[in-house]
Structure formats: C-alpha cells, structure tokens
C-alpha cells in the first residue's frame, strides 16, 4: 500500500495542533497519542522503503505547485528519523516527568519530527527552507526547555547562529530564483545544466554550504553544538545529535550538491576539508571533556565529519569521472555511517540521560562504579561505545572500513590515515567514559542509585538491539540493495535527478 507522502508531515502536525487543546487531565492521553504518532510514522517509513514516487501537492503539475519526492535517499533518512524519534519519544514518556509543561514538550517534539520529514521529502527549495525553519525553531525552544541559566544561554547561542544560517539559506534561495526563475529542484537542475554555473549560482552554493554547514555543525561553524546538545533534555539531545544535524545539514547539502548544482572538484574538496577538520578537531576537543553529555556532543561533531568526508570523497571522485565504483563506495560508507551514527549516538545520549536522572549529575569526576548499579544502562553504553569506536563486529567498524577502503582505492592514503587516527581518538574517549562512569569505586553519594525503569529501559534496550543488528544492513545483500543502495544510486545519478523526477 502506498502511503500518501504528505501524511509523513500531516499526521504529526495535526496531532501537534490537537495536543495543547486537551484538558489538563489528559496528560496520559497526550503521551499515548504522541507515542502512537511516532510509531505510526515508523510504520509508514518502513512501508515506503524501496519506493520512488513524486507527489504533487494540491494537484498542481510540477512547475506550478510544490512536489514531494520520495526516493532512496529520502526513505533512508525517513527511516532514521522515525526510528530515533520513536525511541526518544518512548524514553521521554518517563524521563520528561521531571519537567513541567509536558504536553507542550510533546507538541514541540512532534513539530520537530514533522519539520524533519518535510525537509527530507521536499522537492522545492523554498519549501525546504520553510520546513527547515519549523524543525529549527522547535529545536531552539526544546534546547531552552529546562529554563535554567545554561539552557537559556545555549538556546540563545543556538538560535542566533541558527537564524543566521536560515537567512543565508533564504538568500541563497533568492539568488537561485533570480538566476533560474524557478524554485523546483528538478527545474533548477535542468536550468543549471543548460546555462552552466555562473558567479551568482556559485555564490548561492557557497551560501548554502555555509548555511547548511552551520546546521550540521561542521567545524568552522560548530560553536553552538557543544552548548546546545548537552543543555537539552536527554531525549532531545538524542534527536538533535542523532538525526536533526543530519536531516537539516548533511542531507540538504548532499541533495543540493549532487542533484541540483551538480558535482564539481572544488566543491568536493571543500566538503572533504570540512569533514576532516570536523573529525580531527571534534575528536581532540572531546577527549578533554569531563561533562558526559558535552563529550558526546563533541564526538558528534567528529562523527558528522566522517559522513561529510565520505560524501565529499564521493563528489571528488565523481567529478573527476575516474572511478565511479569507488565514488559509490565512498558515498555508501558515508551514508551507512550516517544511519549508524543516528542509532548509536542517540543510544549514548539516552544512556547519559538515564545516568543523569539516576545520579543527578553528569560530571564524570563525580560518577563511578555504576556497572553494578545500572547493568542495563551499562550494557547499552558499552555496545554503543564499541560501535562508535569501530570495534570489529559492531556496525561502526564496517562503515569506517568502507570509508578506508574507498580512500585507499582512490589513492588518498593520508585520508585513510586520518580516518584510522580519529578512530583511535574515539576509542580513547569512550574508554574514558567507561572508566569514569561505570568502573572504579562507587562514590559514597551514589550507593543507593537505582536502575531506570519502565519505558526508559525499553527505549534503551530497543536501540541496543537495533545497534547490534545494524551490521546486517550492509552484510546481508537483500537488505543492502533495498535500503542503502537506492540511496547511493540517487546521489550517483547526480543531475539526472531532474529527469527522474519529471518522469515519475
């Protein structure tokens, strides 16, 4: 059965509009409804795997109206968004009891999910901007949800940089419209192929790279992330680090570079440079952190660097037209790392939330010896850490291996060396987490700590199982050809996107 594509946006929106209207006593109903929505979105996303469709909103044919495009890349991102949001929503059911105004939290959460789905599905650059703003504004409010000093400060910083990024994107949209007379991605792509790149479009592309790079927290633009992600409530940190920076930043960048503007060598090198600086700087800064969530946030910068590096290598190789097979491998590595990181980083943030809720602190120097007190949390954290550090049987290993192979085959030996080196840094920082949080002496004030219960535990177990199973995504051929390879194909197709969309 084909789900109408607007349903991915309309269902969370409608429920988000209803939730604040419920009477005060309806908090349980609100929670139930919100969980139902995220699970429903997960079902939709699974159902639409492997499909490629175009939906014309309002029945207007493409240049007149807005179209939604579902293809391999979109469905991969939809899957990632819905898995992480379902787990995070389940986790918040109990975790958010420590805050007031829970219905509003649920509303903002659903709006953020709707915004991300809208960005991922949109086939129109202005529409992409609008949904980008929905997701961003919801996330600014959620970062400041705690209302304490740190939260407000982080939220303000995030909001200022995020708004500047949005204005950059809007300015880029305006320049593209002024040059091509169209807002539809397929038509812009066709127009650019016809008239070639000019200074205006190049400037627009650099505005997009700056804007989406700010949203993705690549290194020169990363200042907001280490404040914003730790300050948010744990499930929101999981959403922000897990999928938001990817759906709003990496996805939008990849879509525009590959499918709209077309690949070129300089853009590829810019992306590779951004990716490598993010990897190295994020890795080094993370090792020095003593705040559990802040360490995870810096590590997110480093890991997003891997994804952008893979995509950038793909751009370089594709633009040189030398070895499309290795370009495909690099992109596959990048995208696989993207979904991997979505799962294990959100799992890590959920465990940090569980630890914080049980102990009341996230300073690693005050923690210790929780392995016996919180066995499930510890197990989940170990699996995710092993995965993120690239210990062999775990999924993080495979994605890094693919990236290394692609880099070596393309004769970028130093890139491969950097990947391995940052991987070692990652291993060190997660050993540090294990050492200071879960092993060692139990401090006096943590003797009576209890394991988290109920839905929090369920969410963590769910993601742990998924994290263990992620390797199958690349090792089992049917799964690979139905989930990952269509996404790679979309990017490899490049500017033929316009023809594909018009044909569908």
């Amino acid at each position: 059965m084909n789900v109408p594509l607007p349903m991915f946006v309309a269902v969370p929106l409608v429920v988000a509009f209803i939730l604040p209207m419920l009477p005060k006593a309806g908090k349980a109903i609100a929670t139930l409804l919100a969980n139902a929505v995220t699970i429903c979105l997960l079902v939709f996303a699974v159902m639409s795997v492997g499909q490629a469709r175009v939906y014309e909103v309002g029945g207007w044919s493409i240049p007149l109206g807005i179209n939604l495009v579902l293809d391999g890349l979109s469905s991969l991102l939809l899957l990632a968004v819905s898995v992480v949001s379902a787990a995070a929503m389940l986790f918040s059911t109990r975790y958010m009891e420590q805050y007031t105004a829970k219905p509003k939290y649920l509303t903002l959460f659903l709006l953020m999910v709707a915004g991300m789905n809208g960005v991922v599905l949109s086939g129109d650059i202005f529409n992409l901007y609008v949904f980008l703003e929905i997701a961003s504004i919801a996330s600014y409010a959620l970062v400041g949800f705690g209302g304490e000093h740190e939260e407000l400060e982080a939220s303000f910083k995030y909001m200022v940089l995020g708004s500047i990024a949005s204005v950059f994107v809007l300015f880029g949209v305006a320049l593209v419209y002024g040059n091509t007379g169209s807002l539809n991605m397929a038509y812009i792509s066709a127009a650019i192929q016809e008239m070639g790149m000019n200074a205006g479009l190049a400037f627009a592309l650099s505005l997009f790279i700056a804007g989406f790079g700010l949203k993705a927290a690549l290194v020169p633009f990363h200042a907001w992330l280490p404040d914003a992600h730790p300050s948010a409530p744990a499930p929101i940190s999981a959403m922000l680090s897990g999928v938001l920076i990817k759906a709003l930043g990496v996805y939008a960048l990849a879509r525009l570079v590959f499918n709209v503007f077309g690949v070129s060598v300089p853009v590829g090198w810019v992306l590779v440079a951004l990716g490598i600086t993010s990897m190295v700087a994020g890795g080094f800064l993370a090792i020095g952190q003593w705040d559990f969530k802040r360490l995870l946030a810096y590590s997110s910068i480093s890991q997003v660097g891997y994804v952008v590096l893979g995509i950038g290598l793909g751009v370089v190789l594709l633009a040189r037209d030398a070895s499309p097979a290795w370009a495909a491998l690099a992109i596959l590595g990048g995208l696989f790392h993207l979904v991997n990181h979505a799962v294990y980083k959100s799992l890590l943030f959920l465990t940090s939330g569980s630890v914080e809720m049980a102990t009341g602190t996230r300073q690693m120097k005050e923690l210790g010896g929780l392995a016996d007190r919180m066995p499930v949390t510890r197990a989940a954290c170990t699996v995710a850490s092993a995965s993120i550090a690239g210990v062999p049987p775990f999924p993080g290993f495979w994605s890094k291996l693919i990236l290394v192979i692609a880099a070596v085959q393309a004769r970028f030996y130093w890139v491969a060396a950097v990947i391995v080196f940052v991987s070692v840094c990652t291993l060190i920082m997660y050993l540090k987490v294990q050492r200071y949080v879960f092993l060692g002496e139990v401090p006096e004030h943590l003797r009576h700590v209890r394991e988290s219960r109920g839905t929090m535990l369920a969410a963590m177990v769910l993601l742990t199982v998924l994290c263990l199973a992620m390797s199958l995504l690349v090792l089992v051929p049917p799964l690979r050809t139905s989930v990952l390879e269509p996404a790679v194909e979309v990017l490899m197709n490049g500017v033929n996107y316009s023809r594909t969309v018009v044909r569908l």
Partner: protein
Amino acid sequence: MAVFYILLLFMIVAAIIAVETKNLLSAVICVGAIGFGGSLMFLFLRAPDIAITQIVVEVLGLIILIRATIARDVTLISGDREFFGTVVSVVILFVIFLAGMQVFATLPQFGAPIFARLPEAASQAYVRDGLSDTGATNVVTSVYLDYRAYDTLGEATVLFTAIVGATVILRGKSRKLLEDSDA
C-alpha cells in the same frame, strides 16, 4: 527609480544608526524606521499585500521589542567585543561583500524580471491562469493559498511552533521532583 534609491539609502542610514547607537531604545526605533521604509518600498515595488503585512508586523514587532527593552538597563551598552576579533570579522565581512558584489551582474537587470523572459516560468502561468484555476482575483493570494498552500501550512506551523516555544520559555517553574508526579 529615484524613489527606490532614496528609500534604500534611508533604510541603510537607519540601519547604521541602529547598529551604532548606544541607546537600545533608539536602536529599536531605528529598526522600526527600517521596517516602515521597507513597507513604503514594497508599495512602490507594486506589492501592496506585502506592504500591508509588513506594516502590521512592524507595529507588532516593535511592541514586542519595546516590551523587551523598556525598564531595563537600555543605555548600558559598552563597546564592541575585543578589538582583534572585531577587526577579523570586519575583514571577513568585507571579503564576503566584495565577493557578493560580483554576483549581481549575473542577475537580470532591475525592472526586467526573469519570469518575463521565460515563457514556461511558473509565474507566467500564475498571472495568466490564476483566476480561472483558483477563482481568486488577487493573484498573490491564489499563489499563497492554492498553488503553494503547502508552504503556507508550513508557515502557520512555524508561527505556532514559535508561540508554543515562547510560552514554554516564559513559563515559571520548569522542573519538579519526580516523586510529585508519581503520586
């Protein structure tokens, strides 16, 4: 044409005053002046819908801003950030500005919009068929609420999100003990 230059120069002067004045309230009022200049500009650019919207938004935005600044230490603005950082940012901004100046040659001349040259452009169809397709005589509304209504849904959602966000940020107590809620 001259009116556009005069208005834009007025807006730029107001912007410079808004950026450089030490008094926060004056800065807010200068931004209001930019908004009203923009509103007039929209009117001369033949966009009455935008002019109306801009002017009402301006009034409300000014009320919000004045609410924020009034009765607070509005004049206590010390200088800029540290000198070195300022110089670096200004140099970067100047480079971006010079780069941006090269761009405008690629755009169509002011007064000769791109859609007029492209017979298949969507805007041509909006002007030609807007009335028969949607029944609204205001072509902007037909684009806003019919051809691109999905954007408008997104826009209403943005406003909704921002308002929910503002009430969340402004709520009084934000945390409670977990034991309270279990009871």
